[in-house]
């Protein structure tokens, strides 16, 4: 039996691509990332063959789907395996813009690690924002993990250093260091962050951003990653914005994996990132 085929040209797929690009934008993928991905899909499809009678829209959607899957599954990094195999203590610093959910995510992570029978110490590295030390102290107490803190206004690098010393002296498995939220454009605060990371040389640096963020996600992920190279990101508040396209912007621009999703304000609302699940619900 003969299967007849046609060769796709740009005009065949233009409309489908445009519609999909708009859908991506509505899911909060930054426009330059959406364009770059759509462009690559176009390049791949134009000149390729399709079976006569097969649905072009479907073909385009599938190609886009796999392109996004590729972005989201590149450089997979399993934090659980890493912690299991690494020399202890493992030190993780959390960084990001103001109010994205760093402190809450650290609490969730502490609870998760504790449930896995690791010992955990938290460093109250946000010595700047009003009430920041109280906030993390309440979390630490509720979860039942040790907190190392200094006074408000103290040197964050010193707090983090102390937490690392504490962990070494007491055979603690994991140190989770909080840092103050800061704008990627604030030169002094970014320099301070570099110092925190230099002094304590963490094993991992995790960038925390929120699902409700739009195009700016690209800019800040890029600038944080440039200042203190990150190992991965966590996207919070996906319960408010289920599509979470910002995850794609961030993964694309940093080339680093998304590790977890924050899905609510409870301690158990932390979900390990699953690229397949993510792409499925994006195209739902």
């Amino acid at each position, binding site marked *: 039996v003969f299967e007849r085929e046609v060769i796709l040209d740009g005009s065949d797929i233009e409309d489908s691509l445009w519609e999909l690009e708009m859908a991506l934008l509505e899911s909060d993928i930054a426009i330059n990332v959406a364009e770059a991905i759509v462009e690559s899909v176009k390049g791949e499809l134009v000149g390729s063959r399709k079976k006569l009678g097969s649905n072009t829209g479907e073909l385009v959607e599938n190609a886009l789907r796999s392109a996004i899957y590729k972005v989201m599954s590149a450089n997979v990094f399993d934090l659980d395996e890493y912690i299991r195999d690494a020399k202890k203590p493992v030190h993780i610093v959390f960084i990001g813009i103001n109010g994205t*959910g760093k402190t809450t995510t650290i609490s969730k992570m502490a609870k998760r690690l504790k449930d896995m029978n690791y010992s955990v110490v938290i460093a109250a590295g946000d010595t700047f924002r009003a009430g920041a030390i*109280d906030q993390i102290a309440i979390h630490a107490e509720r979860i039942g993990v040790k907190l190392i803190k200094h006074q408000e206004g103290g040197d964050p690098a010193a707090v983090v250093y102390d937490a690392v010393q504490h962990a070494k002296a007491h055979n603690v498995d994991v140190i989770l260091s909080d840092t103050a939220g800061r704008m990627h454009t604030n030169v002094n605060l970014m320099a301070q962050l570099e110092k925190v990371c230099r002094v304590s040389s963490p094993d991992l640096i995790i960038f925390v951003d929120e699902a*409700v963020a739009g*195009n*700016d996600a690209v800019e800040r992920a890029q600038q944080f990653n440039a200042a203190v190279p990150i190992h991965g990101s966590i996207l919070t508040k996906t319960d*408010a914005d289920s599509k979470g396209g910002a995850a794609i912007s961030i993964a694309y621009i940093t080339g680093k994996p998304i590790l977890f999703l924050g899905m609510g304000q409870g301690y158990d609302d932390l979900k390990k990132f699953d690229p397949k699940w993510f792409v499925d619900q994006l195209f739902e």
Partner: protein
Amino acid sequence: MVMDKLGSSLQDALKKLVGAGRIDERTVTEVVKDIQRALLQADVNVKLVMQMSSHIKERALKEEVPPGMNPREHVIKIVYHELISIVGRSADIPLKPQTIMMIGLQGSGKTTTTSKLSRYFQRKGMKPAVVCADTFRPGAYQQLKTLCDKLNVPFYGEEDNPDAVGIVERGLAELEKNDVLIVDTAGRHSLEADLIDEMEQIHKVAQPDYTLLVLDGAIGQQASEQARAFNDSVGISGVVISKLDGTAKGGGALSAVSETNSAIAFIGVGETPDDLEKFEPDRFISRLLGMGDIKSLIEKA
């Protein structure tokens, strides 16, 4: 894969019009596409962008270029008018005795803005006072109390009592002698039914003169939907856009204003109590479009 540098796209787009003596359909289509892109990059709602760009295109083709203006200036003027018709008036919070309720998504900047507004009213010679109705976020009480203590602003809160509605009732009674009463509430989003319900109850008890929605300047496509939900629930009298000291353009907030037919009152440009500015539509639009001083361009006409 190559990516554009953020920001300059509209400026480049409009350069295309510099040489053009007459505006033809092809040039306009091309320029409008670039305008579309600039707005999308600034986080303006996708549907709103499509709507606006078809308006812009229609007007650019139909309207005569006024004498003394080149086609480029003409298109800028049309774009400006479309945007100003959305954000045009800034919400004016008067200097009189009143109650203000702060609402918004988690981490948007409500508590910080509460301290900024206190400072603002203080500087205008008024006597602000603050009630902490966030009984949900750990450390919310200490955060607000610390901020108020530093400013010498009277503060009411009940540290371990989860009953936000009762706290507001007692707090407003206790602080009665002050003239501007600001109620800070916990962060919430439209899908958290219990928290939305709590907000409605607080609103009923506080009966605020102004309900201010605090939106993160970087919020994306969710802005319209969230704003609509808050507006349906308690009504929004004004918007504060926070965190505009970074690189965010604030198009989400613009979309929220368009969706709820409200207006922007202030913008937040930093973490300290002094980092609050009155909203200026022209500056905001210039920033949104990534252009220099749009006002002087328009005024030239």
